[in-house]
């Protein structure tokens, strides 16, 4: 038999950071490979992570491809496998296979303005692009990041976002007003309309809860963004990551191969089964 495409590599948990606490907690895991293992990836790609005895889950790679020493994943506790991840300690060993899926066409975006719009844990899939763009700052023009959570405690990557300031325009928001919060109060799409980013020579990249994405896209279009200028990612239930198991099938596409990155021009051609 040739390569075993279902056999994961082993990776060690090198660092764990608690991003958000509570019922829908988010933790960020840094995974390192021993003995020259690992793989290269591109912005937007995913990997299938395993905890043996629990199963596998497809998670976006949240670190920039420029970082080769480790891969980073921000995981919300929602189910069987992700809950097991939240029980892990530094030094534990997990399984990983990938990378899977397509990627954001970052090279084609050089020389353009980038507008990132994230909500909840939807910052993770677009984070590698932000990191890459900041690392290669001179290649891009204005970079703007809109990001919002339900409350100040739901803002992930808080310290990293603050560090971006100067290189990037950062516009944070929370859904409901709270004492001590002096940035925008309201939903992310509203914050977007308040700041009115210009569509000229710009690309908008959005990820977050489906309802947020829906209104962000509507608002971007009303700001003059063309369908081809808007990018998002979709995440259906996946089992194989290899375009075979059929779980993530939407229209003719197996999202694990043809996605998860789509321009709105491409995505609106698919059935809305995501």
């Amino acid at each position, binding site marked *: 038999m040739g390569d075993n495409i279902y056999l994961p590599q082993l990776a060690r948990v090198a660092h764990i950071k608690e991003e958000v606490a509570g*019922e829908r907690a988010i933790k960020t895991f840094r995974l390192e490979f021993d003995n020259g293992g690992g793989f290269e990836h591109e912005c937007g790609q995913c990997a299938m992570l395993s905890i043996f005895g629990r199963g596998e889950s497809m998670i976006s790679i949240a670190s920039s491809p420029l970082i080769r020493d480790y891969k980073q994943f921000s995981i919300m506790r929602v189910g*069987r496998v992700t*809950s097991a991840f939240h029980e892990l300690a530094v030094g534990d060993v997990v399984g990983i296979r990938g990378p899977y899926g397509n990627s954001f066409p970052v090279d084609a975006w050089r020389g353009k303005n980038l507008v990132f719009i994230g909500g909840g844990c939807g910052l993770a899939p677009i984070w590698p692009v932000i990191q890459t763009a900041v690392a290669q700052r001179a290649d891009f023009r204005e970079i703007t990041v809109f990001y919002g959570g339900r409350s100040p405690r739901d803002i992930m990557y808080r310290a990293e976002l603050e560090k971006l300031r100067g290189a990037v325009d950062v516009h944070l928001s929370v859904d409901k007003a709270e004492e001590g919060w002096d940035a925008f109060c309201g939903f992310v799409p509203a914050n977007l309309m308040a700041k009115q980013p210009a569509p000229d020579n710009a690309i908008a990249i959005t990820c977050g809860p489906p309802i947020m994405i829906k209104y962000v896209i509507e608002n971007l279009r009303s700001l003059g963004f063309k369908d081809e200028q808007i990018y998002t990612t979709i995440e259906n239930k996946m089992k194989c990551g290899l375009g075979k198991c059929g779980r993530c099938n939407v229209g003719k596409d197996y999202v694990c191969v043809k996605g998860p990155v789509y321009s709105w021009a491409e995505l609106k051609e698919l059935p809305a089964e995501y």
Partner: protein
Amino acid sequence: MIDLNALRTQAADILETGEVGAVIGWRRGSRGMAAEPVAIVAPEEAASLVWDPTCFHNLALYLVEERKKPAQRQVHGGKPIAIVAKGCDARAVTVLLQENHFGRDDVYVIGVSCEGTGVLDERKLAQVLPGVEPDGAAFDGDNFVFATSEGERRVPAREAMMDRCLECRNAHPKLNNVVFGEETPRDFDAPFAALKRFEQRPAAERWQFWQRQFERCIRCFACRSVCPMCYCDECVVDSINLVVTPETTAAEKADRVRWIERSASRADNIGYHMTRALHLAGRCVDCGECERVCPVNIPLRLLNNKMEREAREAFGYEPGASIDLPALVASFRDDDPGQFIR
């Protein structure tokens, strides 16, 4: 003999007057000569209803459509739903009433008596008339009458009838708002006849038999899906990921026990079928649908019959006999010999 036109008129009338919001019955299908389930809402659709030996389905299933939502009621503005029911189907409706899925006023039972016959077993027919694929089937009292391209073919009913019908306890629907057909004497097999025959085989042989049967199961879950009594939100075989709502917590999902693996291995298949049989004890009305739909021909009725007979012998209980009786596992008698319950 059942007057089909009278049945159609009845269905049209109760739709016309608004007494019911829909009638669940059978119409001509496109899968060979077989009838297919249909829910009609307009009086003029009543003309499409049929009654013949291919009306195998136990339509009580659709009273708990989409697993436990008294579905048709929601669709039809809170009006009662009518259901065309054979004797066994009516017993299933009775069990659902006993288990409080809906009230007696929510369902209107149009009973159809199987009289001296029963429904067709297509696998038997393929053996009795090999190579013949009839265009239609009818009863003539003693025989199935098949319309074929080479004229009519008659087959004695008992040769091509479902096993469940041979052993039928009550071919005339006792629970009904209106009933078509007569309560006629039947002279087929005694109840549990096949079970008795099977039990005479040595234990080792029976175990071998069941191992072979369960080895074959492909876990398509048609037996569960077709069963009116298998309405649980959460089934023992679905402990992996069914019934997740936005309110289900991560801990609940993570902690769900996987009693039975997804693999169609013999051990897991036995676990599935045994659990299902036990959950049907005192509830299964022997409509035999699980056995009919099984694509690999596992004789599931033997299991369910066994449980049914246990309930009958231990407690004198007959599932679906009357809506005035409590459900078996929800009832208690002062003279119960079990001490644990006191």
